[in-house]
């Protein structure tokens, strides 16, 4: 028998989409059955009480979690999100309900064996509830008590060789697209770079030392499957510098209808016969393609590598061979001064192990932002406040027309004093010799 009636939540058990309510109820039941005879380390009815408190929120339209919560493990300044219910007498099972972030493997590949081991630990010392995954990428373990945190951490590190993820004013858990593991568009090994950066900057990840949070994300091409340029302060996006590789026979196969456009992504609807002129040539944003006499040509100098033609004809067109990445910086959510997408900083940079060129950019930016960034000011906001030019200086980079979508329209231009002949130290008396008062 369920501990609390949940008439409102029950209505979310119907409908075709996987019901979290149905799943939670099974989880609650399994804790009561406890078929493995575990010495459960947090209340057996933790899920019943979570359903209870959620039902209350559905009834009164407000959250029932107290503000904040500061808990963690020794040696680290983050990784655990503390939470306490604001009705602990009614729902003692979730009086403490802390979240632990576990650093996920790059690309989110698992073996059943490993996941089951993690489940064993979490059933024993936590609620058995998870998020697979947090939007930053972590495996999120939802709900345990303070006294279990060190025990869980001990077991994670000693038995499973598994660390926590990040939280707080530090480097958060980096994440990447699946890259070369299963995508022909990948222009660098996103998983390798993600893992390498995560390991290199462990100290920044576990011990807050920044003005505010900082995120890395790695997309191996401009399609952006991990949304790096919207969701990370430092966005690395794969690209190429030479010509798109064209297989004219395969182009003919698309034109002839042998190959489905866009790998069949629109197969659910009749869009007519594939029309290379209308669907590719005319949609190219730079107008740099032509198709004449059965031959596809690309004026690669004018291509800005948007991926459209490659996405439509993946069997005929491939990214070039001279591969690398672009670096864009500053993306953030609206708080405080408005949402930002990342802005282009480095148009092209090699992306091979050990990734030293990219790390140099990272470290120059950190040096600058850690010094100049105000309390709780994201990199994107520091860039707005101090100007893009200041960041270029900090990185020792020259301005480039690629840095802007368009040049400034206002003429409120700052000059460096040494750029102006004679400098700024002037004597008004000297001026008056030629210009009477």
């Amino acid at each position: 028998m369920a501990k609390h009636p949940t008439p409102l939540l029950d209505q979310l058990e119907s409908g075709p989409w996987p019901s979290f309510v149905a799943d939670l109820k099974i989880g609650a039941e399994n804790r009561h059955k406890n078929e493995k005879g575990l010495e459960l380390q947090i209340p057996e009815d933790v899920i019943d009480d979570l359903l209870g408190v959620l039902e209350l929120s559905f009834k009164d339209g407000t959250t029932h979690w107290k503000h904040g919560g500061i808990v963690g493990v020794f040696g680290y300044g983050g990784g655990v999100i503390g939470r306490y219910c604001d009705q602990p007498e009614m729902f003692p099972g979730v009086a403490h309900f802390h979240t632990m972030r576990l650093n996920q493997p790059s690309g989110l590949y698992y073996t059943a064996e490993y996941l089951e081991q993690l489940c064993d630990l979490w059933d024993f010392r936590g609620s058995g509830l998870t998020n697979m995954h947090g939007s930053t990428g972590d495996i999120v373990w939802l709900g345990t008590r303070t006294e279990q945190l060190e025990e869980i951490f001990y077991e994670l590190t000693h038995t499973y060789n598994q660390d926590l993820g990040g939280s707080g004013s530090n480097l958060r858990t980096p994440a990447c697209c699946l890259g070369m593991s299963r995508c022909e568009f990948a222009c660098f090994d996103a998983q390798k770079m993600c893992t390498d950066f995560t390991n290199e900057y462990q100290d920044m990840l576990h011990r807050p030392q920044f003005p505010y949070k900082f995120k890395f994300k790695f997309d191996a091409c401009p399609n952006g499957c991990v949304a790096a340029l919207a969701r990370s302060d430092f966005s690395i996006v794969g690209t190429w510098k030479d010509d798109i590789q064209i297989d004219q026979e395969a182009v003919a196969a698309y034109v002839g209808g042998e190959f489905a456009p866009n790998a069949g992504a629109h197969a659910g609807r009749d869009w007519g016969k594939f029309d290379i002129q209308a669907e590719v040539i005319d949609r190219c944003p730079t107008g740099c393609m032509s198709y004449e006499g059965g031959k596809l040509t690309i004026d690669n100098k004018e291509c800005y590598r948007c991926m459209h033609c490659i996405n439509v004809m993946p069997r005929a067109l491939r990214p070039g061979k001279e591969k690398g990445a672009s670096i864009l910086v500053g993306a953030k959510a609206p708080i405080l001064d408005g949402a930002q997408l990342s802005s282009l900083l480095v148009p092209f940079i090699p992306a091979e192990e050990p990734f030293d060129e990219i790390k140099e950019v990272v470290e120059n930016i950190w040096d600058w932002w850690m010094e100049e960034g105000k309390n709780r000011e994201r990199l994107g906001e520091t860039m707005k406040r101090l100007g893009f030019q200041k960041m270029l200086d900090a990185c020792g980079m020259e301005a480039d027309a690629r840095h802007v979508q368009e040049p400034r329209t206002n003429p409120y231009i700052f000059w460096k004093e040494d750029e102006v002949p004679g400098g700024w130290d002037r004597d008004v008396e000297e001026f008056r010799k030629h210009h009477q008062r």
Partner: protein
Amino acid sequence: MAFVSSGYNPDKPMSDRISDIGPRNYEEFLPPVIKKNFGKWLYHEIIEPGVLMHKAESGDEVYTVRAGTARLVTTSYIREACAIAKEYCGGHLRWTTRNNVEFMVESLEDAKKLKETLNAKTFPGGSHMFPVGGTGASISNIVHTQGWVHCHTPATDASGTVKVIMDELFEEFTSMKMPAILRIAVACCLNMCGACHCSDLAVVGYHRKPPMVDNAYLDNLCEIPLAIASCPTGALKPSKMELPDGKTVKTIAVNNDRCMYCGNCYTMCPSLPLADQEGDGIVLMVGGKVSNRISNPKFSKVAVAFIPNEPPRWPTLAKVTRKIVETYAAEAKKYERLGDWAERIGWERFFEKCELEFTHHLIDDFRDPAYFTWRQTTNFKF
């Protein structure tokens, strides 16, 4: 419930402590066919909704079957996914950046069997456990947040609203009839932990009442300057006030006319709560994207200033969402994302076609950049 030690010694917390080991190496977990052909993929095909095939230079093929999940899942559910992976996939599986789960096999026949098995699994109550889909020009999973399940600053629930929208649009998850992919994201407050600012359609929890001030406690619980600095519109200032018991305390004064209820001061200061049953609800945003395909990445724009919270099934939200999706699907050209379409026909036409009321709330008034969102041209449609 006896306490069982893991071996950790609370009297010597730093002895035998392992730290800074990071994540497990992904290479340990790759299926053999993935490991063998890593970086050597030639092309891919979407065989049918939810089933992808990747062809390698070696001639090897890997078939991927993608299934939706609720993201908030129990260990029981993860174990179920593991059991399937053990039966069909040599014990390998992965998750996607939109919280779908993917199973990989090496033949089309196995993939079809797997799809059937996955589609047949249901929860008590009838919902699918692993509905197969989310590929191609479809509506894949909804990237979402904590909501009333775990966060203290939400203005709506995440798991609930997501379930409602995905039920409403389920047919679009399992088919590929859209002009382009249509990404939906939910965030339960405007911290937007996830993907709301750059999605085709974004649901954002919103407050409509300024914070209450817990004067008696504020100075004890908050760093007042931090709370003051947290306000994007400068609505807060330090003040003093006399409590009913005659004691004078330092506190914060809220200028209600300047407050736009973002909740950021509450994030900083526990004594400024603002959640409210009638006040809170949803802002609907549309037209964002993150890919660079054809057009540049775009922010989503506010299309509906307020939809009330109506737990448990949010019928107004479901209805408005469906109307926008259907209008876009009927009107947009092939490959056009929702934002591409709205910009081409003009926002005045978007509102007309989607039958959405345009109210004063939708006109930007946040600082200098607001000006650039007004219309400095005579090019408009009647």
